[in-house]
């Protein structure tokens, strides 16, 4: 816990964008040595607030006191000069430059007009050592993993001697292991007396890292608390403004026939190495089959192989509803009843430039229902789209709105609506709630369970362990391309699955069904 002295006080900050009050009289104070979390749904105004602090936006009203002195931050360079550092959600690094070069970028060299990269490298090494941020300064950034790139961003801020550090959703791109490492680093930085503002909407992370929590909703501060005084459920309620069920209820169903059978599936990755190594499983009607694992253990390749987007090695077999589909392309598999919610929503799931309506028929545009005499039947497409927008509560000004202007959660609802409206017999759902608001996530979970009730065989691939534990009837854990265990939901605990994800196979007899 930090000292009682504030490094930062933001008073009565108001910022209005055309049509939206992004910040409405927001107060925030951060003490030396604490991690202060800004919690809120997407669009609650968290990013706007810290962008004002960092000089990227100008507040319409309100004042900022830094170390007790009123300041006006006009630009990021002024913010940096005031020892404010910001780690953006999307990294601001040049991939082809080395770590040291990236750190030095935009700073004045001590040996102008020449560079002083040796000095920079030395200082970077010192900082890495001091804070446990293991990174080699001479490596090109493009060779680094995502978690390492983030460390470079933190080093950049520390190099500029930041005393107040803002982290805008730093865990969004990290694997669970990387998140743990990051939190150790952040805690250490706070203990050294720095003030940290941590922005997130992931409740588990907020509970484990924060000293204090300020919750924003619709641009207003709706409450302040500490992890000791609150619970995940209460935080969710504050964020959303109503009661939220974090663990969905599932009806008990009888075993149905296997609708998806994967046998001896071997798939190569992008670099021709084995990504999925001879795995077999069945998914039954009315079952959610969860696949847990740290990202990069073959889940993506497995999903692409099932969807028909990636070739499989000889001997592999994929059967949909009892019929061999190994040689089918994506179209044919979809025609056989496969629904597919891709992991990369904006790349694979929807077309940003297309309208909501166009994305809702991205698969079925050519069906008899939506064409007449060779032309698209816009009447029928419009009707269908309006119905889905209503039914799935997609927040959009209209069905002809470009999809890019919707929030992530609403885009995901568009994709979900499209895939479920085709009444899939097998549904492949990859990271269905990643980066999505709590409210939207709750809704998506409810729909997945409804789909289970009407007999769909669902494969749920997710890095969110809570999601897999909450939804799945059986959980397969992938590690290095293999399924190391298939655990029935009743036997699956967080610890057990977590160990399996790390490749530690339970010494107790494992259950394979």
């Amino acid at each position, binding site marked *: 816990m930090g000292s009682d002295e504030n490094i930062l006080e933001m008073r009565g900050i108001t910022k209005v964008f055309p049509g939206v009050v*992004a910040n409405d009289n927001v107060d925030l104070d951060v003490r030396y040595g604490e991690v202060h979390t800004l919690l809120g749904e997407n669009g609650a105004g968290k990013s706007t607030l810290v962008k004002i602090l960092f000089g990227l936006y100008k507040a319409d009203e309100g004042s900022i006191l830094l170390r007790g002195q009123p300041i006006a931050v006009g630009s990021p360079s002024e913010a940096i000069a005031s020892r404010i550092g910001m780690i953006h959600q999307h990294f601001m690094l040049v991939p082809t430059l080395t770590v040291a070069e990236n750190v030095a970028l935009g700073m004045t060299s001590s040996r102008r007009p020449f560079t002083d990269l040796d000095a920079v490298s030395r200082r970077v090494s010192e900082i890495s050592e001091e804070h446990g941020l293991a990174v080699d300064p001479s490596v090109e950034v493009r060779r680094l993993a995502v978690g390492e790139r983030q460390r470079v961003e933190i080093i950049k801020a520390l190099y500029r001697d930041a005393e107040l550090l803002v982290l805008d959703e730093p865990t969004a791109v990290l694997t669970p292991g990387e998140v743990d490492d990051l939190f150790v680093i952040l805690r250490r930085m706070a203990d050294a007396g720095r003030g940290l503002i941590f922005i997130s909407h992931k409740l588990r992370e907020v509970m484990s890292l924060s000293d204090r929590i300020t919750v924003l909703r619709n641009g207003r501060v709706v409450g302040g608390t500490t992890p000791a005084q609150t619970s995940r459920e209460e935080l969710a309620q504050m964020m959303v403004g109503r009661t939220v069920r974090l663990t969905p209820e599932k009806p008990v169903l009888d075993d149905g026939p296997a609708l998806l059978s994967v046998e001896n599936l071997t798939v190569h990755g992008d670099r021709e190495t084995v990504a999925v190594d001879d795995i077999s499983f069945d998914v039954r009607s009315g079952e959610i089959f969860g696949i847990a694992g740290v990202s990069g253990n073959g889940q993506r390749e497995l999903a692409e192989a099932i969807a028909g987007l990636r070739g499989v090695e000889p001997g592999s077999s994929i059967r949909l509803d009892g019929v061999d589909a190994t040689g089918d392309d994506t179209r044919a598999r979809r025609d056989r009843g496969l629904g597919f919610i891709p992991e990369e929503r904006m790349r694979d799931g929807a077309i940003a*430039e297309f309208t909501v309506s166009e994305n809702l028929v991205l698969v079925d545009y050519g069906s008899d229902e939506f064409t007449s005499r*060779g032309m698209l039947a816009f009447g029928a497409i419009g009707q269908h789209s309006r119905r889905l927008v209503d039914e799935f509560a997609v927040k959009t000004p209209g069905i002809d709105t470009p999809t890019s202007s*919707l929030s992530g959660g609403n885009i995901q609802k568009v994709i979900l609506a499209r895939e479920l409206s085709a009444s899939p017999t097998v549904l492949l759902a990859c990271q269905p709630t990643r980066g999505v608001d709590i409210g939207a996530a709750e809704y998506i979970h409810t729909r997945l369970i409804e789909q289970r009730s009407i007999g769909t065989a669902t494969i749920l691939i997710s890095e969110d362990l809570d999601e897999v534990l909450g939804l799945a009837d059986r959980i397969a854990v992938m590690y290095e391309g293999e399924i190391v265990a298939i655990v029935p939901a009743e036997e699956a605990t967080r610890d057990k699955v977590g160990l399996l994800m790390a490749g530690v196979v339970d010494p107790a007899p494992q259950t394979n069904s």
Partner: protein
Amino acid sequence: MLKAVLGALVPLLAAVVAFAFGAIMLLALGANPLDGLNAMLDGAFGSGSRIAATAVKATPLILVGAGIAIAFRTSVINIGGESQIIAGALLSTVVALTLPDLPAFILVPLVLLAGATGGALLGAIPGALKAYASVNEILSTIMLNLVMVQVMNYLLRGPLIDPFEMEAGTRIPQTQRLSDNAALPTLIDGTRLHIGVPVAILAAVAAYLILWRTPTGFRLRAVGHSPEAARAAGISVKRNVTLAMALSGSLAGTAGSILVFGSESQRMVTDGSAAGFTGSAGFNGIVAALFGGLHPLWTIPSAMLFGALLTGATQLQRVLQVPAALAVALNGIIVIFVISSTPVRGWLQRSLADSGLFRRSGNHSEAD
């Protein structure tokens, strides 16, 4: 609303600025810019037959431009208009030479169809190479332009040469006068306005309908915006990239047969270069398409503008005794201004948005 107005206004403004540059060039050449403008307007629209000439000049640009819109909307860059025009012209010429006695109401559609087929073939080749072998379509189409010039020169100097040229020993590389049954009927007597003009306009309308009203166009645009999402939805990227190039080429190929059968000489002639036959329509069509915002319908007025520029330049040269290259330069200046107007437009819209003068249409909030 304002966005739409800006969208139309900025390219027009760019054209005006380009013309201002043209005026400066005229001044530098010692001519009066107002006289120059007069001469150009007179040359392009001064009489019925001049308007007809402008429309005829614009015809290949409309066709190529509409084809370019299809390709670009599918994210394929078709620089091969020249080769596709030549292929269309050659195939339709062969058809007219082989079946000269067919009645006009069969032969005219047939040569146009042959033109479309030849162009489609020359489009499909780089399209398929890109789709199935990842060959860069910019390179392959440019290379095919060079190849087709030589194919044309070879055929017109050898197998397809007018037998009379051989007898007389003059050996001008041109075909014999082609069957009159294949000549494109004129629509207004005393002018050169032939049915190629309405054919081109209809083709542009068809291109629009295909792109935005049919499942085929839906697939093409889906692939153009996001090959990954299209693939995940079950749309074949390879097939549609090939198709886009074939469609694009078929429109250019039609332009090729219109160039042959809409000409007064009613034969195919080469001066050894591609531009000698095509008048660079394969490239100018790209310009017309860009100026028309890659929309097949807007390509029609845009092509008319460039057609007027071409016919107007002839008159400009005649009246003011300035080099014809001035029109080419003007053409180029317009392109530069129009293309650079895209960022200007974005900048204008952003600064207007920031000043709060107008509200965004979508719920494109900046919060979070």
